[in-house]
């Protein structure tokens, strides 16, 4: 142990460790999309979090803009993100941050080492004007490629010395595409710098001149020290943007030269034709001002001002604002105060955390038993409820609460949560799908129990109505949810062949979901017990701990005296009894029988799952032998486990859980060999573990199982590294 550190040093080291608990920065071993190491958070906005990151492949610094979760926080986000990337990647301009790469949940951009214009205290006027001129030329370049920024503001202009870079074409909407995403598109943006056509919800009217307005508003802000409109709440702010004239710049900041103020006010005209026709014209006029020439912008005539006053139809304007607010609907809640971003960030964090808890619950179901699973769910439910007590109108959190409740078997409570989410946001597609899936599940369960009633029939109709959202709003949903909805609809409408086909689709794109149990049930209903068993086993294999998988496995055991039945029972027993350490002991006491069933399965070469099961048996055996200090025998058992997992991987080389398990087996081997002083074996085992983890990482990212395996790997490597 070192000499005691001074308190300041300790505080600094602790502060530095904080990065470990920000989930996205949590594990510097883990690379985002196998390539980007997140280094620090640069900022948060309505759509996600921006990080400084390292591209380990090209060894350069990049900025990664990451959505907390694609499609989970609102409709259409991930589609919008990809659109953004497609658009911005076409731009090549020294004053526009380049886009390098795009994923469904993240955009990788050029890292600009500077500070946002919003952070520059009292910039010199000539420098400020030169920056805006250059930014306007860059924006014009984008306009020529059919892209409107839609969210220009001081925060999005990065400055370093004399250079300015326009970042975050985060809301770029390709002019050519009339998008159905305009609902969310129209609300995202910063109302203080937003042109009236955007604030009024007239998304179709947004064009190049909208960016001219935003550039003018930015210039206004930096000259006056505040945006053109300042109101205490969102409604008043939007109304002011649509309806009011901004206070004359020279009233707020008399030192601003008159000509420059004219340029700014020309940008801020309510009617687009009265603004500069293009960002290039704005740039030219700023250039004239810098050169000391006369600008083209003129003060509006008295007659015009009078006419404008008469023309204004206050009622119509107010109605437009209200309509816009209704259209904005769901997103308004988090805008109401300056704390808006904090609330969004908090919501995103919570939703991400709840998703993690859902995943954990499923993953832990097998390993730590139902009690650990329940604990995860309870924690998630408790934190969702606590959050909702503070922010009752958070439909995203209601949705997650519903999913957690459903997972923990509280179906009626789950339905109520979905109802609340939908009461706040009537057409929230993810909630409609979840409610539909739950209703469909309940209908199925009651039918299976032999019920047949008018009420059940009505519920079936309601489920089908919910699930129909998948057809209407597929862009707002995760692909897997769309397919699940279709498959469930087919099942409810008694089209089993189609349901089977659709569920296979689901299984193909998302092997961890409920498809295999459903397929097992369908196969059983169609009198194909072999297929039913195969599906049940693959359900167990892919989602150990996911209750429906075990239910399916046990239900396939109709025919007596088959190894399948026996295995299903063994698995069920394993699941039911893994409730605590005592029960684990019981399981440790039965590996012989457990392995025996699994071995008989393996002889039939039925599935990769059978091998995986036998491997588990061997691992249990190894654990017991290790506890009894029978190291050699434990090593032999580990080798058999590794071999079985190898067989499983021969059948399905992309079985991530198997890869992780084999890496863990190798780690355990390394530790045992370390104890025996067999250094070269340690190294070889560590290499093998590393190889498997690398393979797994290429197949998935963000798997909790993989993250854990890697954590254990780094822990073991450190321990053994000292002995190496």
């Amino acid at each position, binding site marked *: 142990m070192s000499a005691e550190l001074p308190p300041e040093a*300790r505080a*600094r*080291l602790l502060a*530095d*460790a904080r990065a*470990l608990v920000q989930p996205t920065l949590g594990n*510097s071993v883990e690379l985002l999309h196998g390539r980007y190491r997140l280094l620090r958070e640069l900022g948060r906005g309505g759509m996600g979090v921006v990080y400084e990151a390292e591209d380990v492949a090209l060894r350069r610094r990049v900025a990664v803009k990451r959505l907390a979760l694609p499609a989970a926080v609102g409709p259409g986000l991930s589609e919008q993100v990809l659109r953004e990337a497609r658009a911005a990647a076409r731009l090549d301009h020294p004053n526009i941050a380049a886009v390098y790469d795009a994923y469904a949940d993240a955009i990788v951009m050029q890292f600009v080492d500077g500070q946002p214009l919003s952070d520059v205290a009292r910039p010199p006027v000539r420098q400020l004007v030169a920056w805006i001129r250059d930014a306007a030329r860059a924006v014009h370049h984008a306009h020529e490629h059919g892209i409107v920024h839609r969210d220009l503001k001081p925060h999005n202009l990065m400055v370093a010395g004399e250079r300015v870079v326009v970042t975050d074409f985060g809301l770029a909407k390709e002019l050519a595409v009339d998008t159905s995403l305009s609902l969310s598109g129209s609300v995202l943006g910063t109302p203080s710098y937003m042109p009236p056509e955007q604030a009024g919800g007239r998304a179709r009217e947004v064009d190049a001149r909208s960016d001219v307005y935003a550039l003018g508003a930015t210039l206004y802000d930096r000259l006056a020290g505040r945006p053109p409109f300042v109101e205490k709440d969102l409604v008043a702010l939007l109304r002011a943007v649509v309806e009011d004239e901004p206070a004359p710049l020279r009233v707020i900041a008399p030192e601003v030269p008159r000509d420059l103020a004219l340029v700014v006010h020309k940008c801020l005209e309510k009617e687009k034709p009265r603004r500069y026709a293009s960002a290039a014209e704005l740039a030219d006029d700023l250039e004239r001002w810098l050169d000391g020439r006369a600008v083209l912008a003129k003060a509006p005539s008295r007659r015009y001002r009078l006419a404008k006053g008469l023309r204004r139809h206050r009622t119509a304007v107010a109605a437009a604002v209200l309509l816009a607010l209704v259209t904005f609907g769901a997103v308004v809640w988090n805008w109401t105060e300056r704390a808006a971003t904090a609330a969004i960030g908090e919501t995103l964090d919570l939703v991400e955390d709840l998703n993690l808890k859902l995943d954990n619950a499923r993953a832990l179901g097998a390993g730590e038993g139902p009690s650990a699973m329940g604990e995860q769910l309870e924690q998630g439910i408790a934190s969702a409820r606590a959050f909702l007590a503070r922010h009752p109108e958070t439909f995203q959190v209601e949705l997650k609460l519903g999913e957690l409740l459903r997972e923990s078997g509280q179906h009626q409570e789950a339905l109520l949560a979905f109802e609340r989410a939908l009461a706040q946001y009537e057409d929230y597609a993810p909630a409609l799908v979840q409610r539909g899936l739950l209703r469909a599940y309940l209908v199925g369960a009651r039918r299976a129990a032999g019920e047949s009633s008018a009420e059940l029939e009505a519920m079936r109709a309601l489920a089908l109505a919910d699930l129909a959202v998948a057809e209407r709003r597929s862009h707002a949903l995760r692909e897997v949810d769309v397919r699940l909805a279709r498959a469930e609809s087919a099942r409810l409408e008694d089209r089993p062949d189609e349901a089977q086909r659709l569920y296979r689709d689901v299984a193909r794109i998302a092997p961890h979901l409920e498809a295999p149990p459903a397929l097992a049930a369908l196969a059983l209903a169609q009198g194909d017990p072999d297929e039913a068993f195969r599906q049940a086993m693959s359900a167990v294999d892919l989602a150990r701990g996911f209750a429906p998988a075990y239910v399916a496995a046990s239900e396939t055991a109709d025919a007596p005296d088959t190894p399948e039945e026996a295995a299903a029972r063994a698995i069920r027993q394993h699941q039911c009894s893994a409730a605590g350490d005592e029960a684990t002991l019981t399981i440790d006491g039965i590996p012989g029988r457990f392995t025996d069933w699994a071995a008989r399965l393996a002889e039939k070469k039925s599935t990769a799952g059978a091998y995986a099961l036998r491997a*588990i048996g061997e691992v249990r055996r190894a654990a017991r032998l290790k506890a009894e200090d029978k190291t050699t025998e434990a090593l032999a058992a580990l080798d058999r486990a590794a071999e079985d997992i190898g067989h499983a991987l021969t059948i399905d080389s992309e079985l991530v859980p198997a890869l992780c398990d084999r890496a863990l087996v190798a780690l355990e081997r390394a530790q045992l060999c370390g104890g025996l002083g067999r250094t070269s074996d340690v190294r070889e085992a560590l290499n093998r573990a590393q190889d498997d983890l690398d393979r797994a990482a290429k197949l998935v990212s963000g798997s909790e199982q993989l993250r*854990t395996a890697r954590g254990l790997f780094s822990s073991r490597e450190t321990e053994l590294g000292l002995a190496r």
Partner: protein
Amino acid sequence: MDAGIFPTTLWSDVRRGGAVGKAREAALAALAQRYQAPAEAYLAAALRLPRERAHELFQEFFAWMLASDWLAKAAPERGRFRAFLKVALRNFATDELRKERAAKRGGGARTESLDGEDAPEVLDHATPTPDEALDAAWRAAVVEAAFERTRLALERSERGLAFAVFRDYYLAGGPEPDYRTLAARHGLTTTDVSNYLQRTKNAYREHLRALVLDTVANPSDLGDELAWLVTEERP
């Protein structure tokens, strides 16, 4: 994932039921050694002992823990070594107090309740509670061990300069030193300093994570324990 199957961290090695194997005792000894200082801080606060006496008492505590069937009882509900250690220490300290008082009263005939007047927590409200003392010392122990591991690893890899930058950055008293000062002191560019620091910081974090991992038995506890570790200490 089948996390429950695998004897993976030191704490899960300890937790695993069944016969008391050598592996388990070794794992417990390793953990106890790492967290000896926090345990002593607890004993010192609970029994109002000087540190040297607490240091001696720790050996008794460890022997008591091995001899009693604490380990067997500990298992399932204690996902974290820190929580387990607190309970064990509390019971041990209560025992000690009881013995002490019985001796003062001149006989040990009376039976005391574990949670009654003899419980160590009620001693004094002004000084930190034993739990607080342990927590503070625990944070320090983890950070120092991670720092030490970082140092050792850098020494082994002969990247002494990287460590020198890291040390100067973290160990300087007063405000955080800026990169330019560090660059000048070590004859580096500020980019070098930034790169060195980034790498050493990452290594330090990994060591810290590995250390914490060894005190928990499943992945969800790891997150919670890390979060606890870095949460601001409140006065």
